[in-house]
């Protein structure tokens, strides 16, 4: 029997009961589609989270005041309010740790901001110009403030694009305009480039002002709430983290590292924690989808067993006119494989459509990977073989005499 003969014979078999074939195939279609869609959702959200973490800056080590906590809880912890880190620490780090590319200090407070006719409530971050490098922030229009302006307590502000939109109408050039932050007048000198991110979790809705100004007018002390250090290369990140820890322990006269009054955290820790969480989530989603694929496979086996029983006489006839065991087995195996392969292809298309719809409607970022498509297709073909083998073997072992007599 040539391949063409086999396909011809099997398609006749499958088309003879279209409703049953269709319903059985639907099981595989749903299984494959859900595997594709679930993996896409898992992938997509993992990519989104990684992109968000990386958008903070690269090769980053962060120091926050207060006792160290475990990595997991630090991810979303707000900048510490403990008063242990000073500008002197920042200067010491930048002068004594050569592996640090740039060191930036910041303080954060949430303030009411008023522009003529408009107002908003947003994060006001006091920073040094090094913050631009360390956190990968860039200026879209206007300029950022200089170290001199930090020293001279210049009341200037650089707005995030979302904040700008909240405070100024689209046709107004914000550069040179004045805004009031908690009653203090500031001149807008620049707008940062948008970094994206979802509402409530974006760096676009922020106002940057000189660190010294923030300390004086909003915080009321000389402490900093965050030191961000960019290592020269990604290999140096851990090194820098250790050096910073050692330096600060020495400066703060603490001999026991477990009693440190600050904590350090590097970006790869955050990334690995986040990716292990999203990885688990993806695996869980895929497992659920996999179960539905398995159920689809059992449906195939059920249908093939029914088919073999129903077509006992046909099998008997085929054997009587010269079909060998192998011919019969192959025919039924190809039948179940055709079911799962066609079902698999439809499922892949459906799964990709679902992912696409989820993405364009903004419900989820779903990212269909080639691996998941190949995986789903391969698994469905294998299901065809595995669940089709037993019915096919049963068909091939039928005795032609018994089979011809079967009513």
């Amino acid at each position, binding site marked *: *029997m*040539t391949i*063409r*003969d086999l396909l011809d*014979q099997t398609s*006749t078999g499958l088309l*003879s009961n279209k409703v049953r074939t269709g319903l059985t195939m639907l099981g595989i279609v749903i299984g494959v589609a859900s595997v594709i869609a679930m993996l896409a959702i898992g992938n997509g959200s993992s990519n989104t989270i990684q992109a968000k973490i990386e958008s903070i800056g690269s090769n980053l080590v962060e120091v926050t005041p207060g006792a160290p906590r475990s990595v997991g809880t630090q991810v979303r912890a707000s900048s510490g309010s403990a008063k242990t880190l000073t500008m002197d620490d920042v200067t010491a780090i930048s002068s004594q740790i050569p592996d640090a590319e740039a060191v930036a200090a910041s303080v954060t407070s949430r303030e009411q901001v008023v522009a003529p006719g408009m107002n908003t409530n947003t994060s006001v971050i006091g920073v040094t110009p090094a913050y631009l490098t360390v956190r990968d922030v860039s200026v879209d229009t206007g300029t950022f403030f200089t170290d001199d302006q930090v020293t001279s307590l210049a009341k200037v502000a650089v707005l995030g694009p979302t904040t700008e939109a909240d405070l100024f109408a689209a046709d107004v050039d914000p550069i040179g305009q004045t805004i009031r932050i908690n009653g203090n007048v500031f001149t807008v000198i620049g707008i940062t480039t948008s970094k994206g991110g979802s509402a409530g979790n974006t760096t676009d809705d922020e106002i940057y002002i000189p660190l010294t100004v923030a300390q004086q007018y909003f915080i009321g002390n000389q402490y900093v709430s965050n030191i961000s250090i960019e290592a020269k290369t990604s290999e140096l990140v851990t090194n820098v983290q250790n050096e910073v820890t050692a330096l600060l322990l020495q400066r703060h006269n603490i001999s026991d590292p477990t009693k440190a009054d600050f904590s350090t955290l590097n970006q790869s820790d955050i990334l690995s924690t986040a990716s292990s969480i999203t990885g688990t989530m993806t695996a869980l989603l895929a497992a659920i989808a996999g179960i539905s694929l398995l159920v689809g496979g059992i449906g195939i086996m059920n249908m093939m067993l029914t088919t073999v029983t129903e077509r006992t*006489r*046909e099998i*008997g*006839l*085929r*054997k*009587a*006119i*010269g*079909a*060998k*065991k*192998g*011919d019969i087995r192959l025919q039924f195996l190809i039948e179940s494989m055709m079911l799962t392969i066609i079902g698999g292809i439809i499922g892949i298309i459906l799964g990709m459509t679902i992912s696409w719809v989820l993405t364009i409607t903004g419900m989820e970022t779903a990212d269909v990977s080639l691996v998941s498509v190949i995986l789903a297709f391969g698994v469905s073909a294998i299901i065809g073989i595995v669940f089709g083998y037993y019915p096919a073997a049963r068909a091939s072992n039928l005795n*032609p*005499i018994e089979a*011809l007599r079967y009513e």
Partner: protein
Amino acid sequence: MIECKDIKKDYINGDEVTKAVKGVSFTIQDGEFVAIMGPSGSGKSTLMHILGALDTPTSGQYFLDGKDVSKLTDDQLSDIRANQIGFVFQSFNLLPRTEVIKNVILPLIYLKVDPVERIKRAEQALLSAGLEQTRWHHLSNQLSGGQIQRVAIARALVNDPSLIMADEPTGNLDTRTGEIVLKTFQDLNKKEGHTIILITHELDIAEHADRIIHIRDGVIVSDEKNKNKRISNISLCENENEEKITAECSEIVKQKN
């Protein structure tokens, strides 16, 4: 040539042993038209299964064209059936909802005959079996009983077998249609020289053959030349749809002659 030497077949069902065929010997020459006749339970079906290489005897030897097929494996028997035997069954056993021509081609698929050659041979077989050309692309369930059985005969002919086994071929047909089918067998035997074994329990069916082997309780009770052979005088084209006698149909007869 077919040669049976003391063929025995026992069926074992638990402790009970049923002796279906109890030592049967005969020889059938090429080109003979033989009827094996006996009541139900006589062992004629069992004998037919053995002669048709669907089953092997418990003991004894069966030579088909000089080859002993009594000790072959399942797949070897499949080979014998594919190459040397054509079956016509009482219940037709066509593939449902499948074109006539595809039904006829089926044995050639298992013989791995080249697709173009297949069609040629299937058409030749359909002509020999006397099915009008207009029906060749009908689906098998759109045909009448007589037409279906002729498709089955064409299918049995298509591999050019040394032996055609017809198991109660008229059992599901009315007398008139049955006559046409028997006439077809007679023509195939006389004009094309096919060896035919007809299994039946009715004497007037058996009397269409040249030789009748009578079997009862697993043994041959008589094996003699049929003295009063019936010749169907129904014309091949005068089928059950008499109004459909067409020019094409008579052309088939011309080709056959």
